[in-house]
């Protein structure tokens, strides 16, 4: 499943971005299935905006995004839900957990959303142990620290089948040791699914074996 962008630029940033070189904005780029893509950018240059546009949370742009040759705006409602349940998984920069649910419930929600389920419930425990958050699984997500919330969001994203895993600064609040553990888990899960990943970050890094690196 390829993701193609043609002459894409977000409307609010149009003036600012037009006069500035970019590997993504206002270009023709294709993210080929199974590739590991790194998108590096300074703050305020539209990383989150790009992620939201790819995930069809924002529509305020000019240019085109095509998923498997299909224009993103033509995918609606239940088809969009199917896409998000089966093909696109995401780790938001702001995590977007349900504060009123426990960490476990947040992850469970994603696990049971797409039928048939991909993983049994015990896999959550295994992953949580691997990332060192087993002890907080029964805590309300609202009471967890930022770093813990990031790891909950990562495990949640891994509960479903996907062709692409999109992550928006997923390690911003993790120390090196925890980043290594999380990146290793993510790489394993992507390999299992032969899936690609798109990760945005501020700096250069070597968390994954990137196929392409772009400057936004």
């Amino acid at each position, binding site marked *: 499943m390829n993701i193609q962008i043609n002459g894409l630029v977000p409307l609010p940033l149009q003036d600012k971005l037009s006069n500035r070189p970019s590997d993504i904005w206002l270009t023709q780029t294709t993210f080929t299935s199974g590739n590991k893509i790194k998108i590096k950018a300074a703050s305020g240059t539209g990383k989150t905006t790009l992620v939201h546009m790819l*995930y069809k949370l924002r529509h305020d742009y000019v240019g085109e995004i095509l998923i498997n040759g299909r224009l993103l705006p033509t995918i609606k*409602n239940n088809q969009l*839900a199917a896409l*998000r349940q089966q093909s696109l998984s995401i780790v938001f920069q702001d995590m*977007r957990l*349900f504060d009123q*649910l426990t960490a476990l419930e947040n992850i469970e929600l*994603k696990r049971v*959303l797409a039928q048939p389920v991909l993983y049994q419930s015990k896999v959550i425990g295994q992953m949580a142990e691997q990332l060192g958050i087993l002890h907080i699984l029964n805590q309300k997500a609202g009471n967890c620290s930022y770093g813990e919330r990031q790891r909950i969001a990562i495990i949640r994203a891994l509960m479903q089948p996907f062709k692409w895993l999109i992550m928006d600064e997923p390690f911003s609040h993790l120390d090196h040791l925890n980043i290594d553990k999380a990146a290793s888990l993510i790489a394993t899960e992507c390999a299992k699914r032969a899936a690609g990943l798109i990760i945005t970050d501020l700096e250069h890094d070597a968390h994954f074996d990137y196929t392409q690196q772009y400057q936004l």
Partner: protein
Amino acid sequence: MLHQLLTKIINTGIGGTRRWLASIGLFVAVLLILLATQLQVNYNNLLYGSSNRDSIANFLVINKVVDGNKMDNSLTSKEINQLRQQPFVQAVGELTNSRFKVSAQSPSNQVPFYTDLFFESVPNQFIDVQNKGWTWKQGDVTIPMIVPNQFLDLYNFGFAPSQNLAQLSQDMVMALPVVINVQHPGGLQTFTGRVVGFSDRISSVLVPENFLDWANKQFGTRQQANTSRVVIRTADAGDPALAVYLKNNGLKTDAEKTRFSKYRLIVDVVVKASASTGVVLLLFALLVFSLFVQLTIAATSADIQLLVSLGTSPTQLQRFLMQKFMPANLIICAVCLVTVWLVQFAAQQFLINQQLLISPMLSLYTVAAALAIILVLWLVTRATVRKYIFSVAG
């Protein structure tokens, strides 16, 4: 599992009071509509049903106006046929006269009485008394009779006090045999008469039709006589067309019976008013309910948005929300049905003492009305849920 999690997420935003108010409003509205439906059905059953006690409502005895100017006030077959063809007439029963001399006397010397008598007969379907004793076959010496209620009243409240005689109950009269003497050219034949019922409908001494046919053939001294009275069955005793027809053709009937139409009009208005109130209330309840659904979705719109962005499909959310709202609606409708059934049962027990027979069960129409209301509720809830989920989901 998904359902439980969604319940946890979506429940947090909803106020209980509003839900109760919406439910109570819906309950009252549904109850009113179902009660009005059941009332209308009962009412129709009482009016048009074929139960044995719906005595005087739609049967009218019709005869010519006797003004002293004519010798013969009987109805010709042409006149009867014409009557039969009127739209307000459902059936016509001719009263057949006895064409022989009859007298009745007491079998005992302790209560001596003697009276000349006459018999009339009418097809059974026009008689308001159904009794196992109401049969006669050739060879029987006992003749069942139905006498007017007024006869007994006249005796009990007029004759008996003036003659210092004991008053008689219906059961006592029915237990007393009477000697019936039929005079005919060949002599005198004696039968035993037994009163098997009292009629409010026909002011005559009725005997079974087959007895009178046989007796007229056997003892009759005159040729077939013209019919002097007929009983008609009508859907509406208060039909103005009926009154006009009778007047124009010099016919009359018991005015007392047509008075019923006024009560009927009042009941009609009451039933229609309660049904209309129910419908208006249902509309309001639906409005409140759909606002409640909107409010629930609005109060949790951020959560619903997040659910959608995580990949929850609008269909999944719709199914969840329908499962959340519809059970309460179903329970409300069920409680209303049970309430109406209890009311119906109580009404049946009460009315049975008033000689009015209604079914102790709910009518099919009432159940159908409840199902229709459930369907409307389902459609309104679904439309509201869909509209607002899709708007929130973007």
